[in-house]
């Protein structure tokens, strides 16, 4: 359990980090290291250069724009979990962060690192897909922005440019009235989830649902959104939620592994998605009478 030897650089600016990335085709960015270092130790990853971005000050900021909360690549999960701005404007992410690893890994792990790593069971990636976050990479002098719903293409596989450095992830702010739900099933606390689901309903000032977003994770090669737009035409009663989720989840490809069958994962994910939607609805209003 010892990594192969590699060189190590500690750039102070994003430009310097990008120059280092361009200089070595086998370089990797090191942020919190909570996914990368185990891969190094198991020698699944054998970079010749690690670029530690922890000393780039700009990357540790959380910034509010008119429409988004932009989380810098080095913002640690524990910091994000306690950030007032995130609790207020991205409550779904706050809920999900309770399920991410455990306190010692959250103290080091970052929001951006989890997204760049693209583990199929990652809660942060699921929230990014569910809310349609904007993921920004710097390549040389240019910023490239990716929509999270098109960013993940396989297990640990994304469309990120190989010579790019993730600089920030922008999550859309919720509307004033909004409900959220996040659930997962894992063999034990802090372990990889077997199935997970996230939901957010934005309401207008009259209490009508404006947008409904639901995503499921851990069941396929990457997190995916369910198409539940049909629910906008209903009063969000339990029957419509269950029927809509049941139909939508048939579109999702699920995978088997040692821990659970594809069928089991799909069934659990559908249940969790229903529960997440109900919680999101009930946070704002009482369940309508049947």
């Amino acid at each position, binding site marked *: *359990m*010892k*990594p*192969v*030897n*590699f*060189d*190590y650089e*500690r750039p102070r600016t994003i430009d310097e980090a990008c120059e280092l990335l361009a200089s070595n085709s086998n370089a990797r960015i*090191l942020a919190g*290291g*909570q996914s990368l*270092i*185990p891969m*190094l*130790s*198991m020698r699944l990853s054998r970079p010749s250069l*690690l670029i*530690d971005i*922890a000393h780039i000050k700009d990357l540790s900021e959380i910034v509010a724009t008119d429409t988004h909360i932009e989380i810098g690549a080095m913002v640690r999960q*524990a910091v994000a979990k306690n950030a007032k701005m995130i609790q207020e404007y991205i409550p779904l992410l706050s809920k999900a962060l309770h399920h991410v*690893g*455990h*306190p*010692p*890994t959250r*103290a*080091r792990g970052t929001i951006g690192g989890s997204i760049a790593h693209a583990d199929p069971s990652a809660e942060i990636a699921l929230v990014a897909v569910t809310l349609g976050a904007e993921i920004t990479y710097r390549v040389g002098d240019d910023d490239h922005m990716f929509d999270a719903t098109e960013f993940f293409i396989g297990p640990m596989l994304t469309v990120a440019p190989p010579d790019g450095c993730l600089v920030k992830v922008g999550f859309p702010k919720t509307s004033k009235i909004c409900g959220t739900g996040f659930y997962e099933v894992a063999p*034990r*606390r*802090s372990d990889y989830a077997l199935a997970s689901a996230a939901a957010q309903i934005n309401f207008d000032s009259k209490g009508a649902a404006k947008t409904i977003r639901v995503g499921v994770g851990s069941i396929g090669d990457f997190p995916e959104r369910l198409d539940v737009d049909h629910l906008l035409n209903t009063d969000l009663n339990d029957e419509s939620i269950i029927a809509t989720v049941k139909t939508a989840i048939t579109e999702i490809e699920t995978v088997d592994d040692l821990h659970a069958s594809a069928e089991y994962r799909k069934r659990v994910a559908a249940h969790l998605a229903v529960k997440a939607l109900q919680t999101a609805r009930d946070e704002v209003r009482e369940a309508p009478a049947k």
Partner: protein
Amino acid sequence: MIQVSIEVNGKTVTAEVEPRLTLLDFIRDVAGLKGTHAGCEHGVCGACTVLVEGNAIRSCLVLAVQADEQEVISIEGVGGDLGRSGELSIVQDAFCEAHGLQCGYCTPGMVLVAEALLADTPNPTEGDIREAISGNICRCTGYVQIVEAVMLAADRLANRNYKSKPGQPSDQTLG
């Protein structure tokens, strides 16, 4: 090789290291402190937990070069006066009294996550404690007594008549 300087239990340890050296191996082999246990070495078991800048973290998932210029407290440093007084910390003492250990391999990690929890959350619920130790595996499965030990420590910390943080002198009287 890169020169790093890490303050371990109040003493600065400076050495030339390979970038691949983990903080765990730095503490054990360079600083020579064997109380931090090497378990799985890939972030699953929690046996190697130490405090870095006050946060409980797994030392096998941090490179020594990442901890450069930072403060580390290992199990040897949690007792009074950074472990130099020869006295156990309240948490360590509670683990002895509540029989919160059997083989003892997970114990340094358990004690350090408990120290970090109690520094931030003076009156934890059982749920808080279980959450705090959720990343640490006890293969003797002695979790019930470990939780009892942390609750006992919380109770004693709440009722003591002085204040201190892990490793700090315990002679500061509460006003």
